[in-house]
């Protein structure tokens, strides 16, 4: 047992260590939480002409009687549909990467890598020389990726898969904006070239300019600005999100989870003659349940707050509001219409939604993941 004197001394010392962080925490996190909650019941505004006064739950009743709020909430939830695809992809990549990738003869692997690198360099040099620059470039990249993959194995591939996650930000969003350009973006140009090559006529999606969605066949109310069934702005943002996250932290966590599965389980299944799918279905997937649970919970929390950067950089929430998520709506209310009180009310409603979903997850997830 520690004596009261030591305990008191310890408290002072702990306080000294804690002070810088605690001070910042109180001023920039805890305080603002209280202010924003209180502010959501007032006329709080950045316009000097608006006097601050208490208006009760006015902001909240306004919010719930605003059809746009339900539209933006729907957009936020709809974009969450990319999450299961992304998580399944991360799991698939992790399983793929944790397989045995070494060739039996370690020297053969090194030789193949060297040959791939030299061969691609020579061929692409030749192609470049005869004026086929693009093919040369692609061929060179293919050769180098092959060399890196065979030489470094899973670490090499992991680097390529993780890069979109590490570089994610304004730069990659602008990059995708160009890829999605309906007329000369890489994606629609490729579809066009494919059509000309095969004589097919696949429609080029309007991507960021389109209000279509994959659920567009449903009878939505008018204020949802539904453009019918197809690939539209929301799908464009979802696909970009999957590209950016599929090989990211979720894959890394799955890789760690897989390496922690006791090898005896697989040895036993080999004796029973299980095939690859059965091994995944009855060993890998159940053993990864706690990891999946963590990833799903964090993914939903992040996803419900998401869509801000994409909306601000790519679409300004459009076309016709279909890419406006709740977080972008809060920004527009707070910093463009300068109505901080209303923005704070939306933020608190968003928090309650996140809290509710997390609690539901926790309740059901605990049972199924056996934690």
């Amino acid at each position, binding site marked *: 047992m520690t004596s009261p004197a030591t305990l008191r001394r310890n408290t002072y010392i702990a306080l000294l*260590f804690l002070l810088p*962080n605690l001070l910042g925490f109180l001023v920039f996190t805890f305080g603002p*939480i209280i202010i924003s909650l209180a502010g959501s019941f007032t006329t709080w505004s950045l316009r000097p002409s608006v006097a601050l006064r208490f208006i009760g739950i006015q902001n909240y009743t306004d919010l719930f009687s605003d059809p746009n709020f339900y539209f933006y909430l729907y957009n936020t939830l709809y974009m969450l549909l990319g999450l299961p695809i992304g998580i399944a992809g991360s799991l698939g990549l992790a399983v793929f990467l944790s397989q045995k*990738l070494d060739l039996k003869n370690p020297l053969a692997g090194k030789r193949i890598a060297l040959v791939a690198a030299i061969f691609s360099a020579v061929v692409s040099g030749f192609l470049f020389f005869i004026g086929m620059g*693009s093919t040369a470039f692609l061929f060179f990249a293919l050769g180098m990726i092959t060399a890196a993959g065979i030489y470094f194995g899973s670490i090499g*591939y992991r680097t390529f898969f993780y890069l979109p996650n590490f*570089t994610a930000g*304004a730069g990659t969003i602008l*990059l995708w904006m160009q890829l999605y350009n309906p007329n*000369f973006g890489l994606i629609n140009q490729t579809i066009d070239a494919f059509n000309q090559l095969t004589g097919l006529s696949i429609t080029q999606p309007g991507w960021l300019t389109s209000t279509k969605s994959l659920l567009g066949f449903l009878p939505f109310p008018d204020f949802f600005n539904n453009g019918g069934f197809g690939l539209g702005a929301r799908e464009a943002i979802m696909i970009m999100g999957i590209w950016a996250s599929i090989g990211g932290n979720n894959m890394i966590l799955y890789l760690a989870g897989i390496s922690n599965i006791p090898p005896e389980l697989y040895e036993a299944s080999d004796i029973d003659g299980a095939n690859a799918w059965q091994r995944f279905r009855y060993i890998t997937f159940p053993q990864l349940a706690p990891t999946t649970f963590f990833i799903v919970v964090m993914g939903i929390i992040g996803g419900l707050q998401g869509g801000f950067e994409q909306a601000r950089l790519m679409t300004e929430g459009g076309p016709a509001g279909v890419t406006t998520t709740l977080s972008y709506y809060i920004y527009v209310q707070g910093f463009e219409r300068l109505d901080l009180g209303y923005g704070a009310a939306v933020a608190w409603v968003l928090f309650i939604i996140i809290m509710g979903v997390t609690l539901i997850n926790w309740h059901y997830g605990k049972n199924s993941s056996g934690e």
Partner: protein
Amino acid sequence: MELRTLLKHIGLICIAIAMTLPFLWMLGSSIKPHSEIEELSLVPRNPQPENYGIVLRQSPDPYTGKYLDLNFPKWYFNSVFIATWVTVLQVLTSSMAAYAFARLQWPGRDKVFLLYLGTMMIPGIVTMLPNYQIMVQLGLVNTYQGLIIPTAFSAFGTFMLRQFMLGIPRSFDEAAEIDGANHLQTFLEVILPMAKPGIIALSILTFLGNFQSFFWPLVMVKDDAMRTLPIGLLSFQGQYGQQTELIMAATVMNVVPLIFLFIAMQKQLISGIQLGGVKG
């Protein structure tokens, strides 16, 4: 068996190509002349590497004949400057707080820690609105201090380093105490060096997060001289959005240094993420 291994490699190579193709297209487009931008090609027939010089305002834009109205080097400096300061301050304050939470016994410790954890669940945007108001009151809008100070304290960093420090055996503190070390010495000379993997991972994540940070600078920055890279790119997009080749040259200058940073630091980063069970 050998054939199956090779097939796995082929599958992985295809995925790696799909993941890198946007980057390859970005590189190619960044050296295209404006006349070739609508062609489906990765490499232009008449490469124009001067695009980089145009973005950096070393030469006028041949398309309009004028120098661009933007300050890319300054944006870059601002981003690196702010991210470095935030990283240093965050690691300092987080590691000190983590020491208090993980290595010291004091009444109320777990309650205070729970309060920290609880606030991590509240969306960042909830605190952004009041923080902006606070910055207005303090007159720190559009200043480096205003961009750095509010982001210099992190519950997440405290949490992550606490987890790391909990894993260090007690016997190290006790040995230091027997040697007559005080808490400051124990912290600096025993615990910090042992928590180094966590500190490095946190530093990379914090630097990256603040280098790419979008929301806070977006509301705080009011003029071009204070713009960070992401905010600069946004205004660039607004002004010269039709000139894909220039946007891509700017994007390359944003993304490529990060690619090298990742390749250099990936071992530390990945092990940090795995150890902390952390979302970046």
